[in-house]
């Protein structure tokens, strides 16, 4: 239950700081996002560059790259996801504790990018796991990754702990695991997770 903004600012002028559990919780979470140290291809180098001296992701509280998915909040899918790697990426995502977020970094993670025509390249990680922020670019500059992080922070600020739109972690009806695709005879099976991704329906212009 959000507090009335006008009342809140009046109280602050009088020297009273009012907050809600939700605001405090979200404030804490958004300023200490721990990403998974998960580099796939070229974009991973820009991810490292964003964490290093010049761009310094530590300013936004996200410098603690964890090698273990069990300690991470954010998965930065940095690079081309091949069909051999896709089941492992989904398994890593399943192992992360809720609440968890995904940034699809670069053209390859969004759609397959320049390698889309290849027989071994997954055409976007959002076919299997829900993606919160997409960053275009090949590779995106470190500034773009920082921008995506700030976008994610703004999103985390608006997360709800209760109510209809509460977080997935607090919703018992939501499933905790996402189905892991398997390498079938010709391709990954299933080719996508229908809960997350559906192909765009074909629109036929009506004859007048």
């Amino acid at each position: 239950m959000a507090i009335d903004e006008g009342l809140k600012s009046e109280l602050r002028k009088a020297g009273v700081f009012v907050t809600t559990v939700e605001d405090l919780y979200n404030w804490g979470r958004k300023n200490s996002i721990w990403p998974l140290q998960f580099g796939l291809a070229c974009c991973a180098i820009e991810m490292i560059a964003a964490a290093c001296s010049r761009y310094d992701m530590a300013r936004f509280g996200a410098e603690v790259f964890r090698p273990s998915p069990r300690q991470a909040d954010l998965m930065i899918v940095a690079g081309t996801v091949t069909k051999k790697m896709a089941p492992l990426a989904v398994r890593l995502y399943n192992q992360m504790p809720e609440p968890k977020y995904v940034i699809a970094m670069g053209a390859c993670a969004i759609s397959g990018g320049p390698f889309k025509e290849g027989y071994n390249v997954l055409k976007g990680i959002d076919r299997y796991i829900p993606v919160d922020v997409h960053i275009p670019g090949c590779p995106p500059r470190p500034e773009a990754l920082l921008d995506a992080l700030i976008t994610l922070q703004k999103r985390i600020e608006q997360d709800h702990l209760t109510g209809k739109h509460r977080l997935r972690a607090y919703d018992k009806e939501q499933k905790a695991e996402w189905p892991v695709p398997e390498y079938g005879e010709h391709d990954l099976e299933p080719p996508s997770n229908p809960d997350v991704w559906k192909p765009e329906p074909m629109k036929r212009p009506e004859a007048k």
Partner: protein
Amino acid sequence: MIQPLTMPEQGYTLTPKEDAIETQMLEVSMGPHHPSTHGVFRMDVVLDGEEVRRLKPVLGYLHRNHEQLAEKMNWLGSIPFTDRLDYFCSMTNNWAYCLAVEQLAGIKVPERAEYIRVIMAELTRLQNHSCQAGFLLSDTGAWGTPLLYAFREREKILDLFEAASGARMMCNYMRFGGVRADVDDDWLAAARKVVENYPCFIDELEALITGNEILLARTQKIGILPRELAINASITGPMLRASGVDYDIRKVDRYGIYGRLDFRVPLGEVGDVYDRYYVRILEMRESVKILQQALRDIPEGPSDAGVKMRNFKVPVGDGYGRIEGPKGELGFYLVSDGSTRPYRYHVRAPSFINLTILEDMCVGHKLADAMVILGSVDIVLGEVDR
């Protein structure tokens, strides 16, 4: 998903030593998600206690169909894809591909373009080797610090690349018969400044890590690659020179203007991880020398041979262009049937061939040393799996 080991048991025994405590072999699958595998690379390791008895690299987690895609598009179209082979060194990848096509088509490169190419390639070598030192130190346990120093310097070089080509990493800069855009005097002045300051950084890096006792203990006499084995396994690049073989394509082929430049080829003695690290440091010092000469002598003139790129065709035949990339001999083997696209396109990737020797270097060492040995090979998975 773990596949059983299918490698023939040859050359070493799988039974524990007789005087040792009776133990059981343990099979560990390291990767593809592992902080020290430099990307998506998996090793199936058989351990006796902590000692590596067998090691099987599992590749293909980043197989992006590079060769197949290149055979489907025109000659010019695969230059941006060569950037993404070894994503640390896009400039040298461009150069190797352009060199192969120029050989096939018989294009002569103007003088100024040759100088610009050498400058770009040596800058690439500087940033690759400094980052490699950073990653190697990360693998030995020095999390962060050396890598932060290396990336600080790398950003300065990337700024130069960005000013010349418009992109930080994926430069897409070389063209058949020259470079895409000429560099101006301001750029050359900026490059001179970076090159002038680079020895200070190498000194700083060396003061930090070269004499460090932990580094010496972790790297000396670890992962020794004998000279004969290195030659037989067609290892190239700093890894081969660390084993004491004097083979540098810049000296052997004298492609570009390297025949006119004065530089030396540093060699190692033992062929262990430390030698591989230190050969790279010495190579950076030689690269600085090359850069100083090239930036001093760069002539005026056109930076492009004026090849018409639209509907570009190559005469029938095959050609192999190779250069000394930062990781070793990078070659492109191209077969042309006279059309606008290559008939066959093959990449001789140095990382891939250098990786084949990994087991021979790791067997008998501890598991923690296997990571350091892998770090010293300097692989980039984009090039290994292609």
